[in-house]
């Protein structure tokens, strides 16, 4: 095998193993509610698969392969009586689940969605929902997850352990809610996935991978709830953003704003998929915030076809979004679009109206937008001050450098 062939084999193995991982965790813990046990049983099997499959090829029934290894390892452990004393009844239940699953291995029912609903249950600490989903559905480790949420691996590990204990001890059910309940129960699941994506959007180390994980989760929800327009809207929204990822940075890592991006670098396949999903979502029923946000992205990428972004459409869409999901971020983004249409004074008035909102005080896009609009209006002092705050709020070197250059343009 050449290097690139083995890389392809590895990524295929990883994809299949991960697909099985979440399904098996969901299935194996559905009755006992014991995520930790299910994960223990699968962790080694998952690693073994990632070692073997790139060489041997992915087995015909990956679920069965993983279960066989997991069962064998579990039995070995139990035989050694290492773990027998602590909670024998409980271990028996886990053993039952493993055996029952092994008999069903031809078709493990896909309960990943039920698992996601358990992870996003209202009694789970909101800060733990997204990481918990990433761990249980995708098999990411606490170390993988921690860096992306700016906490230490130990802290993240403790949060995850607490959340799992809660699911087990409070018997939080692994259930996809009935259709009439979905409108209230689905939003936290979608919000968790989107939180994973936006965490990945920041250019922190490892962030790119997290974006991929979020999109993966989005695909899972869409495939298991094909009738839900908002699930499709969210996936479309993430794909629109993802398609532009490689054009957001120049050759030297410098930040490139949306309207200066090279459209040839945009991922056409992802854009096409996003357009298709958005179309289906819109045909499917009531319009929610993710669909509108995706539609805004769609108007932005229209530049690929028409050469210019359609700012009037963007403003109108923000008006709709402001009605169903008002937030200072919506007001801010609408103001930016207004400014792009030439209505700079109106845009600045809207931004000024937000200045008392504490949430904007450390929100980089607020300061960057304010700076640019003040600069365009010739308000140099205000522009320099706002650019300075924006620079101080940066996470990434590329963005910092970009804003420093914008500021020095005014000063020169």
């Amino acid at each position, binding site marked *: 095998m050449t290097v690139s062939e083995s890389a392809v084999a590895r990524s295929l193995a990883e994809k299949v193993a991960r697909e099985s991982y979440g399904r098996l965790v969901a299935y194996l813990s559905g009755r006992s509610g014991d995520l930790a046990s299910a994960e223990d049983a699968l962790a080694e099997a998952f690693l073994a698969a990632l070692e073997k499959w790139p060489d041997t090829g992915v087995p015909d029934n990956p679920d069965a392969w993983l279960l066989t290894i997991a069962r064998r390892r579990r039995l070995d452990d139990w035989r050694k009586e290492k773990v027998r004393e602590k909670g024998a009844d409980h271990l028996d239940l886990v053993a039952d689940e493993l055996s029952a699953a092994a008999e069903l291995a031809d078709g493990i029912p896909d309960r990943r969605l039920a698992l996601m609903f358990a992870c996003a249950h209202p009694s789970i600490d909101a*800060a733990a929902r997204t990481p918990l989903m990433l761990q249980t559905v995708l098999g990411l480790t606490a170390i993988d997850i921690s860096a992306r949420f*700016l*906490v230490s691996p130990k*802290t993240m590990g403790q949060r995850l352990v607490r959340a799992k204990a809660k699911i087990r001890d409070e018997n939080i059910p692994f259930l996809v809610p009935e259709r009439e309940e979905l409108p209230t129960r689905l939003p936290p699941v979608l919000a968790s996935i989107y939180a994973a994506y936006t965490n990945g959007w920041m250019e*922190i180390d490892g962030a790119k991978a997290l974006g991929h994980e979020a999109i993966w989760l989005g695909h899972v929800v869409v495939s298991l709830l094909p009738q839900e327009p908002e699930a499709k809207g969210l996936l479309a929204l993430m794909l629109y953003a993802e398609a532009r990822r490689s054009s957001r940075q120049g050759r030297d890592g410098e930040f490139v704003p949306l309207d200066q991006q090279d459209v040839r670098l945009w991922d056409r396949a992802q854009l096409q998929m996003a357009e298709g999903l958005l179309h289906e979502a819109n045909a499917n029923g009531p319009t929610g915030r993710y669909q509108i946000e995706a539609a805004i992205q769609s108007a932005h990428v229209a530049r690929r076809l028409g050469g210019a972004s359609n700012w009037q459409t963007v403003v109108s869409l923000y008006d709709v979004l402001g009605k169903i999901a008002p937030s200072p971020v919506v007001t801010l983004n609408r103001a930016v679009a207004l400014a792009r249409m030439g209505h700079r004074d109106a845009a600045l008035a809207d931004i000024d109206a937000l200045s008392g909102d*504490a949430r904007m*005080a*450390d929100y980089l896009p607020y*300061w960057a937008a304010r700076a640019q609009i003040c600069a365009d209006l010739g308000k140099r002092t205000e522009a320099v*001050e706002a650019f*300075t*705050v*924006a*620079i*101080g*709020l*940066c*996470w990434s*070197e590329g963005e*910092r450098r970009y804003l*420093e250059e914008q500021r020095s343009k005014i000063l020169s």
Partner: protein
Amino acid sequence: MRYMLMLHANEADGQAVAPQDMARFMGQMFAYQQALEKAAVFISTDALVGSSEASIVRVKGGEVSVLDGPYADAREQLGGYFIIDVANIDEANKWAARCPAATWGSVEVRRIRDRSEYAG
């Protein structure tokens, strides 16, 4: 809650930085402080002189000893600090990750003990 962000960096690397780069770094630190102030979390900050001007004093068994800096065994030295007031460690970490000093050294985040925590 108050947190101290301790900025550690390699002094030798710092001395080797070209003047125009240093001016840019200083500008970034100023911008960072502006951001902290706008967000109303800033309490205080200071930069420290190099460890070659420092001394360590110990009194052990009645014997006083004074050790002059720099301390050869430590690669990174404390070069300055920010004291901020935020809700929790997650917020403090968020601000630490934005600190430009984190890109050339490391930022240690520690909660400052509240007076109420001392047994009365």
